[in-house]
C-alpha cells in the first residue's frame, strides 16, 4: 500500500503497471506460500472440491482435515469451494481440475443431477475419485472409489438405540427443515430403532428460521402429550430453541434430550448434563481420510471398503468427553 502511494506522482501508465504487478504479486505469494515437500511424495497432488461455503464453520473443519493430512503425508492437497451453494460452479471447477490431471480428486455430491456428468468425466480421464459428506447413494454408480461420510439413517438408528438404552419410552423427533431428505432419514432411523426396542416416537416439524416459534411449538408438544419423556433434535438450529423450551416446562419432569451435530451451546449443554449426548459426524475425518486413502491408492493401488461407505460417524459426544471436544472445537479440528 505504501509503495503504491509513494509513486502516485508518476504517470498513469506506471500506476497501471504497478496495479497489474500487485495483482501478480498477490497471486504468486498465494501460490508459493505452501511448504514444498522434498521426498518422492512431493509429486502427489490431490484436489478437493466441496459445496461447503468458505465461511461455514462446519466446512472449515473439513478444510483443516485436508490441510493436516497433506502436511502429515508430505503431499499437496488443494481445497476448493464456491463462496455460495452453487453446484454449477463446482462442476466448472472440477472441469478445470480434470485439465490439470491431479493424482486424485475428492468431491462432495450435494446435487447428483448437476455433478454426475463431470464426475464421470474425471473417472473416465483416469483420475481416482473419492466422494465425501453427501452423495453416498450415488457414489458407486458414478465410478467413485469409495464414499467417506455418515449414513444418515444408520446415525439415526444409533441415536435411537442410545435413547432406548437411556430409558426413553415415548420420544419426539424435532425436524427443523422439513423436506431435507437427509434429516427425514435421521428421524426415520431414530423411530425404527425405538420401535425395535418396543418404544414409541413421533415427529414434530419446526422452522429453523423462526427460533421463537420453534421454542413455543416444542414446549406446546410436551404440554399436550404428558407421556413424552425424550427428544431428539436434528441440528443446533433445532437444539438451541429446544433447550429454551425445556426451561419453560415443569422442572419435575425429566426429559432425555439429545441432538445431531455440534455447536458451542450444544457442547456446553452436554458438558453441564442438560443434554445426554450429541451425534457427531466427525467431519474432520471427511477431510483427512480421503487424502490418506488417495495417497496410498496412488502408491499401492490398495483401497479399503470394497467400494462401500467408510463411516466417519456417528460419533457421540457425552458428558465425559464434552470438555475435551470444546477444546478441540476451538482449534478448528472438531
Amino acid at each position, binding site marked *: 500500500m505504501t509503495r503504491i502511494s509513494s509513486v502516485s506522482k508518476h504517470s498513469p501508465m506506471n500506476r497501471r503497471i504497478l496495479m497489474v504487478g500487485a*495483482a501478480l504479486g498477490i497471486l504468486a505469494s498465494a501460490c508459493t506460500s505452501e511448504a514444498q515437500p522434498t521426498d518422492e511424495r512431493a509429486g502427489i497432488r490431490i484436489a478437493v472440491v466441496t459445496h461447503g461455503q*468458505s465461511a461455514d464453520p462446519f466446512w472449515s473443519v473439513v478444510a483443516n482435515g485436508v490441510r493436516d493430512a497433506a502436511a502429515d503425508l508430505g503431499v499437496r492437497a488443494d481445497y476448493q469451494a464456491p463462496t455460495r451453494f452453487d453446484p454449477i460452479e463446482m462442476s466448472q471447477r472440477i*472441469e*478445470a481440475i480434470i485439465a490439470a490431471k491431479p493424482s486424485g480428486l475428492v468431491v462432495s455430491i450435494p446435487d447428483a443431477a448437476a455433478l454426475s456428468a463431470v464426475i464421470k468425466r474425471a473417472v473416465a480421464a483416469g483420475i481416482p475419485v473419492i466422494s465425501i459428506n453427501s452423495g453416498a447413494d450415488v457414489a458407486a454408480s458414478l465410478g467413485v472409489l469409495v464414499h467417506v461420510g455418515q449414513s444418515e439413517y444408520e446415525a439415526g438408528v444409533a441415536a435411537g438405540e442410545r435413547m432406548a438404552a437411556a430409558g426413553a419410552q415415548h420420544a419426539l423427533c424435532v425436524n427443523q427443515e422439513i423436506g431435507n431428505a437427509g434429516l427425514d432419514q435421521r428421524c426415520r432411523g431414530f423411530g425404527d430403532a425405538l420401535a425395535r426396542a418396543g418404544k414409541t416416537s413421533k415427529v414434530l416439524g419446526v422452522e429453523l428460521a423462526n427460533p421463537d416459534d420453534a421454542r413455543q411449538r416444542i414446549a406446546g408438544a410436551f404440554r399436550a402429550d404428558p407421556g413424552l419423556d425424550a427428544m431428539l433434535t436434528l441440528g443446533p438450529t433445532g437444539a438451541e430453541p429446544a433447550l429454551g423450551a425445556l426451561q419453560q416446562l415443569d422442572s419435575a419432569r425429566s426429559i432425555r434430550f439429545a441432538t445431531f451435530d455440534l455447536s458451542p451451546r450444544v457442547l456446553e449443554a452436554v458438558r453441564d448434563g442438560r443434554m445426554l449426548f450429541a451425534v457427531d459426524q466427525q467431519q474432520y475425518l471427511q477431510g483427512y481420510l480421503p487424502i490418506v486413502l488417495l495417497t496410498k491408492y496412488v502408491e499401492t493401488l490398495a483401497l479399503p471398503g470394497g467400494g462401500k461407505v467408510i463411516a466417519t460417524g456417528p460419533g457421540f459426544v457425552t458428558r465425559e468427553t464434552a470438555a475435551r471436544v470444546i477444546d478441540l472445537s476451538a482449534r478448528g479440528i472438531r
Partner: protein
Amino acid sequence: MAFAEAVGPRRFLTELPALGGALIIWSLFAILAGPAFMGAQGAAAYLNAAAPLGIIAVVVSLLMIGGEFDLSVGSTIGLCGMALMLLVGQAGWPFWAALPVIFALAGAVGFINGWLVVKTGLPSFLVTLAMLFVGRGLTIAGTRRLAGRTQLGGLGVRDGSLAHTLFGSDLPGGLHVTTAWWIGLVIIAGWCLQRSRFGNWVFAVGGHADAARNAGVPVARVKITLFMATAMAAALVALLQAVRYDGADALRGEAMEFRAIVAVVIGGTLLTGGYGTVLGAALGALIFGMVQQGIVLTGTDADWFQVLLGVLLLVAVLANHSLRKRLLGTA
C-alpha cells in the same frame, strides 16, 4: 448522441483495454498454471465457465449503454429454471410446450422492470433490486409450496434429441454448446448496436435521454425492450443450465447480476451509459472465466478469486478512464 458520434470512428479503440486485459490475464495464468491452462482442455474449461456469464453480459452491456441497470437477471435465471422444472418435471408438460412459457415469463419480468423504470422515473438500480428479491423469494417459496423442495432434478432431455443437441450437447474440443450461443449473441448484439437504427437509439438514450426524446427517439420503447432482452437472456441461460445439469435449484444464478456488471465494466462500458461495446463485455466475461478457472488450476485457495477480481475491476476502470481521457481530452 454527440458523445457517441465523437467516438464513432474510433469506437473499436474501446475494446483495447479489455483485449489487453484478457491477454495479460491469459499470460499470467499461462505462467502460473502452465500447460494445463494453455492446452485445449484448459481453454474449454474457462470458455465453458465464461459462456453463461457471457450470454448475460452481452445483453446487459446493451442495457447499460442505454443507461440502465438490471439487478434482477440472477433471480430471473432461478425463476425460469424452476418454472421449467415445475412444468416439465412436476406437471408433465412436453419440453417444447414449456419453452415459450418460460420465455414469456422472462419477458413479463423484463416488461415490468422497464415499465416501472420508465413510468416512475426511479433509478433502475432500485427498481430491479426490488425485483431481485421478489423473484428470488417467489422462486424459493413457490417451489417449496408446489414441490416441497428447492432442488428439482430430472428434466429428462434425452441425449441425441433435438433439445439436447441445441441446449445440452458438447461441440468438438469439449466446448459446451453454450459457447456457440454466446458467440452467436455477440454477433447479433454487436450488429444491433453498431449497425442498426436501434443501436443508435440505445447510444442516444444512454447518452442523453432528453436530447434523444427531442430528436424523436422512442425512449420508453427502447428501455423496455432492453429490459425484456436481459430477462430473456436470463431465461436462455436458465434453459441451457437446466438441460446440461439435468435440473435446477432455487439458488441458480445467484450473484450473476453483479458478475455481469463487473464483466461489462471490465469490458469498457461506462456506468453512466452512452458508451461501451458488446465485444468488450464478451471479453470481460472471458477474463472472468479465465480468472475463476486459472485460480483453480494454480491450486490456490479459491477465496483469492474474489481478491483478484476486485483488483482487476479497479485496474480496468482506471485503464478505461485514462483511455477515454486521451481520446476525448475530457473525462
